[in-house]
């Protein structure tokens, strides 16, 4: 089976903020699935590694008019213009790349030499540096996932849309003599862990996948669309102030209309 026989895919996510309760199950599942390291003291969140991070947004109004929204933020797997994601173009050692077969922005920790330029380039703060060597509590190293390499001190890491799951699913499909994956065969761990069903994952180009239709929902928006990052994570919210929080607007501008790039 060769690559050119496969249909081009753009894996992406739609997160329904009307459903998200901010429980953090997606963060926990992600850390367990991807062997994300942690420290005894995680109070300094600017040095905590959270491939998916749940933000707490408020409408800025005092009680009783205050409203809250929780916004999970994985890597946006930006396509930019024709695959020129903000981080991919700047990496001097091609330690991160835009995969044109899946639309996933990869990360190669063994090639990364820790210049952190990609972190500076990412407006979403979705990239994290290993300031320390990973140290697991005694016994816990036995429960690490064998499918994901642990990263060492001094390199950058980030959400990969659980790419190892894609690889495993592709291998299984190949053994079954199939070239294409079914929607349910490749799902990220955060998607499966969300108890509210707020996260939907799939191929944004495939009409048979739920995300294809959800991204066209009238509530859909993306973060910082105006910068031209062209992210593959969509959000849904019925609240106008939440949608407006997704980008920068002048006071006289209406909250953006969706321009779908995928």
């Amino acid at each position, binding site marked *: 089976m060769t690559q050119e026989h496969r249909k081009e895919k753009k894996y992406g996510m739609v997160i329904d903020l009307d459903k998200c309760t901010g429980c953090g199950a997606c963060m926990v599942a992600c850390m367990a699935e991807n062997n994300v390291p942690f420290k005894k003291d995680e109070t300094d969140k*600017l040095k905590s590694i959270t491939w998916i991070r749940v933000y707490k947004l408020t409408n800025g109004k005092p009680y009783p008019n205050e409203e809250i929204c929780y916004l999970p933020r994985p890597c946006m797997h930006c396509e930019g213009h024709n695959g020129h994601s903000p981080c991919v173009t700047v990496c001097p050692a091609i330690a991160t790349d835009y995969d044109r077969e899946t639309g996933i922005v990869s990360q190669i920790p063994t*090639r990364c030499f820790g210049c952190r330029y990609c972190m500076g380039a990412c407006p979403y703060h979705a990239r994290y540096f290993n300031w320390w060597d990973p140290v697991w509590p005694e016994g816990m190293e036995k429960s690490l996932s064998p499918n994901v390499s642990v990263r060492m001190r001094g390199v950058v890491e980030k959400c990969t849309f659980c790419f190892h799951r894609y690889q495993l699913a592709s291998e299984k499909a190949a053994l079954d003599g199939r070239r294409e994956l079914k929607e349910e065969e490749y799902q990220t761990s955060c998607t499966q862990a969300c108890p509210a069903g707020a996260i939907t994952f799939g191929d944004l180009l495939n009409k048979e996948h739920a995300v294809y239709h959800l991204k066209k929902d009238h509530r859909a928006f993306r973060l910082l669309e105006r910068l031209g990052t062209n992210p593959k994570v969509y959000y849904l919210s019925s609240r106008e102030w939440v949608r407006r929080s997704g*980008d920068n607007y002048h006071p006289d501008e209406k909250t953006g209309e969706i321009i779908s790039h995928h």
Partner: protein
Amino acid sequence: MDSALIPEGVKRCPFPQFLTGLAVVGAVLAWGVFAMLLCWLKGLNQTNMNDSYGFALWIWADLAVIALGGGAFFSGFLKYIVGKDELKNIINFAVLIGFICYSSALLILAIDIGQPLRGWHIFWHANVHSMLTEVAFCLSCYFGVLTIEYIPLILENRQIDKIPFFHNLSHNMHEVMAVFAATGAFLSCFHQGSLGGVAGVLFGRPFAYREGLLVWPWTFFLFTWSAAAYGPCFTIFLTKLLEKITGKKLVKDNVIDLLAKISGWMICTYIIAKIIDTWYWASVTVHTRGQTLMDFYDDNLLYGLWILVAEIVVGGIFPALILLTKKGRSSESLLWTAVILACLGVCINRWVMVLQVMAVPVLPFEDWALYYPSWQEVATTILPVAYGVILVMISYRYLPIFPQERELNPVES
């Protein structure tokens, strides 16, 4: 004790005094080396950098020393390519400063990367689209050129020069120096520019992002221009400082005046371009992304509108006006003021293009991220300064850095 090594016809301080000076600066150097080893052995957790501040004090120091060291390539360009022969009396010192600045930049980068042993990946797995790749190649190559430019100077040491091979080598290297000066100017132009490009291509960071020409954002050209403009001011500043310390006149006034005048014109034209760039960025680039100028200048202590005024007016327009006038250049105090303000101006520019880029929130629901360096970062930033002082001390003592020194300070026999 070391009189046989000191150039003929010049006077130097007694050897014990020289050694004491070396020991004091050496102690600072040792402090920096200790901090550097901590960073290498324990990792970058020794710094106060974080995931919001992936680029911080070190990258600023890197950009700043490269800009200040721009005097080397621009003086070389003026002397060897344009033909300003008077500058031969200051070119040695400009090359020495450039050599120190560029070697410092390499050292800082070696400390700054998380996996120093993988530093070669930038050359082996080079991404030709990355401005940082261009930085690495140009920095390394130009450092090589500066080394070639510095070697003949070392060979002119009184004792080394006695050896016929080294004497001839030095002579022959001087003969072809124009080729290296031209190569250096070319490489440094691209290096300075690519450092500007590092910030300018960040389309996810509206504070840094600039449109431009072909693959180069406007910051590419502005950085090269500013380094050529401000670099000579640093050369003049250090020459004047050395004259104060040694109590001697080392370079004739006409040489300083020429370099200051050229620098003044360069700063003047640069600052006009910078004002146009800032105006276009604020009114068009940023506006189309839903933001305004004041979104980037909060009322916090560090990043108020004052920093823009300090960079453009105090560190740009003021020194340009002083250096453009004959009166300003010939007045000792005004010249000092101008070169100090100019050096501060270019350092502020590099500061905002690194640290303010990281500080400004991009997502509407995030806040400003502020940062202060750890002592290890400060010590490793002072380390190259101490190294530079030591190299200047040794070079000044044993090498004929200033060709006019003997004439200006005749030694009574």
